[in-house]
């Protein structure tokens, strides 16, 4: 395989997948190089197979819906708990207690 074939490889691949022309710089080489022509044909087949993959769907794990909805339930529960006055009061009391304890603990000089 020549250096030109190596350099032309990505352009041939692009041309085969997108259906466009090979870069003019490599066009005359590709027209006469059997190796590059074979590569073009192979890449065109690959493109068809890649496109065929697009229609394939894999079934999601059976518990995915449950996992997502449970997470949402959890989020909602947390946000709801904070919206309750009692939760706020508990939080304020805890913080006050923490500050008091911190102030009352004797410190070393």
């Amino acid at each position, binding site marked *: 395989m020549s250096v030109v074939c190596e350099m032309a490889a990505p352009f041939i691949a692009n041309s085969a997948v997108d259906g466009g022309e090979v870069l003019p710089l490599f066009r005359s080489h590709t027209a006469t190089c059997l190796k590059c022509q074979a*590569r073009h044909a192979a890449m065109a087949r690959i493109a068809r*197979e890649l496109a065929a993959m697009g229609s*394939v769907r*894999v079934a999601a794990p059976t518990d*995915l*819906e449950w996992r*997502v909805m449970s*997470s949402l339930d959890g989020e909602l529960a947390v946000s709801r708990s904070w919206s309750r006055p009692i939760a706020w009061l508990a939080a304020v009391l805890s913080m006050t207690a923490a500050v008091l304890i911190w102030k009352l603990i004797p410190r070393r000089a």
Partner: protein
Amino acid sequence: MGNPSDPGQVEKNREQELIARAQKGDRSAFAVLLREHQDEVYTLARRLVGDQHLASDVAQEALIRAWRALPKFRGDARLSTWLYRITVNTAWTHKKRAKRHQGASIDDHLELPAPVDAGHPEMAGEILELRERLRLALDRIPDAQREVVVLKDIYGWSHAEIAESMGISVTAAKVRLHRARGRLAKDLEETA
């Protein structure tokens, strides 16, 4: 507005109604949308990250992100396209965190449609062999290149859409695709 009796339009209207309800916080409407789109989201996640457990986590997080971002969904794109974008972003974040999962096969358990030339066993065999080689070749290319090939050549996204989703420039997306296709071609040739 489309024809209201057109089945496609009826389906579109039904989905829009579900989206509108979910945007207002109706979780049962979101659950219906989730059931309809979870396979698509999971399939894309599998193709992007390979490992099925990681893909499951990515799909879960993507769908949770979708719920949170749903009030901002304006309906400019199709819901599935919007979900794909979220999945790509989520996969990107997950992969940064979970490098150890790299190298897992991208289509290990994906069943491709039966070869078109099923009437010609020799050609069908050839196609199956090509698919297997393609699957292995895709596994071998770097993640960043694989993502671009998956989005462009499997899902048919534009360079601009890929660039936006991956947070890279259009030029960078083109360069990655260019390199990825070159590597794929070379790799497949070597394994032929």
